[in-house]
């Protein structure tokens, strides 16, 4: 499969972000540079409140950047001249606490994107949505509201909602943060299965070490505020990965390596009393 045809490559160059709430500068990001090739699963790991979400928001276009440049497939998303990227379906976001519209059924949620972008007629959009939901194992609950299904199902539906728009890059902001460990590990396998069928570029933020190593091809470790890229560790584990990988020798070695790097940052964040800006 030609990976580069499906995903988009992301290029983050020397990006900094300084907030200014009430005149007190908050230096969130400092000189972050990262190149993500098309089709890669890139995990961004760091302690709470360090600025990982700020980076994601900059790519998605929710915030502007103070300096630097971000490009998608060599097209400029934002730079000094145009500090805020335009939001759009080429960079779909899956949110931390889920953002399925509670007043629409799962089916209508998924069909929303293509209908609103006028890529498909409503009837066709619903058919395609049902098809994709069935692939994800959610055919039975397609007509239910998000409030009626479990969080695992809701999160899967949200990913389907993102993927139906053929995004170049999938931005995941700690989507499994609020789940119990058992559900989480099933969701991980599920995500990798989806990735197998449709290798879109994935930019995944997490504070969970094992999640990062299990899912990713590279783990980017970020420091506490002002956040910058501390270290990038390549994950050599072969695909397909399932939960048995978690107890393998190679996995444990990687955990030790990543932990050595990230633990110091976690201690610093703890001492500083960082509050997660959920």
């Amino acid at each position: 499969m030609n990976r580069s045809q499906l995903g988009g490559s992301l290029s983050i160059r020397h990006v900094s972000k300084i907030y200014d709430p009430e005149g007190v500068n908050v230096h969130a990001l400092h000189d972050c540079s990262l190149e993500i090739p098309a089709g890669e699963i890139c995990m961004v790991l760091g302690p709470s409140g360090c600025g990982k979400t700020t980076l994601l928001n900059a790519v998605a276009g929710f915030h502007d950047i103070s300096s630097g440049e971000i490009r998608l497939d060599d097209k400029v998303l934002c730079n000094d001249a145009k500090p805020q990227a335009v939001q759009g379906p080429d960079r779909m976001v899956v949110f931390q606490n889920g953002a399925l519209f509670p007043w629409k059924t799962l089916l209508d949620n998924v069909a929303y994107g293509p209908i609103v972008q006028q890529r498909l007629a409503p009837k066709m959009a619903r058919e395609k949505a049902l098809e994709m939901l069935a692939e994800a194992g959610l055919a039975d609950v397609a007509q239910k509201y998000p409030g009626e299904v479990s969080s695992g199902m809701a999160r899967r539906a949200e990913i389907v909602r993102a993927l139906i728009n053929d995004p170049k890059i999938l931005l995941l902001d700690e989507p499994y943060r609020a789940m119990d460990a058992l559900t989480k590990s099933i969701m991980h396998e599920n995500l990798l299965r989806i990735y197998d069928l449709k290798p879109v570029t994935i930019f995944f933020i997490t504070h969970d070490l094992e999640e990062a190593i299990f899912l990713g091809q590279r783990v980017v470790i970020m420091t506490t505020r002002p956040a910058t890229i501390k270290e990038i560790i390549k994950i050599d584990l072969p695909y397909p990965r399932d939960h048995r990988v978690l107890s393998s020798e190679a996995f444990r070695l990687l955990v030790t390596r990543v932990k050595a790097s990230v633990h110091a940052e976690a201690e610093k964040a703890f001492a500083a009393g960082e509050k997660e800006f959920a």
Partner: protein
Amino acid sequence: MMSEPVTGTRPLSFARLLWLRTTLIFKNPTLYTGILGILVFLLLYYLTTEVWKLPRFEKLPGPVAVLKEWFNPDPMWGISLYTPDYYQHVWASVRRVSIALLIATSLGVPLGLLMGWSKVFKDYTFPLLEILRPIPVLAWVPLAILMFSGTETPVIFLATLASFYVTVLNTLLGVESINPAYLRAAACLGSKRRHLFWHVILPGALPFIFTGLQISVGVSWFSLVAAEMVSGQYGLGYLVLNSYTSVTYETIVIMMITLGVIGYASSALVRLLGRQLMQWRVRALAMEKR
């Protein structure tokens, strides 16, 4: 924790919802304590006014006298369930409140949505609203009489004003309470501004709008009754006061009860409407099994 799985995928019909709720009420033991409470209250009311004839209570009409009058085909004071006058007054008030609510909602909801949608617009309009709001609605009576001719319009104006404040504020609150993640998600999905409005802002604010509507109904009745007392010709408020001045005391209690029943019915109607329009909330709350 789910005790029983929800099997059907069709939305629960209105009739079924109603049936489920009604049977649930009768299974509840506290219902019977409540009935006891009401009976005790009525008993005390009866005893103090008609049997023991306590010093201040004796002047009040007792429940027996009231009921006798209410169900009297040829009532002493001209108002009972059998007289057309009764229904005339009820209808006059209901009509006024309905008009007031209609105007207040059709003006208030769009205004509230706009204020929540655009900060600039809110900056221009909110201060004006906040300055006018502390002025009690009834203080507007003289101005209302001055500005609007006739006896109907000032009264409707006052009820509309009270309802308007509540509607705008609650709608505004509703829009501001929408989780920004929904707006971001919608933007990511390629929505244009009109999609954001119809698919996110309006449904998102709907729960608050309906809370506002319920409060609005109560407030509207409150102001209507007061306005009718001050300057009306027909209607329940007018009749209550009139019964006092013409010393037909039983009618007072009849009208009070009528007001209570109608007030409750109108709130319940709004609540039912809200439940129908917001199926997703009903079913989500049912899942949480509070």
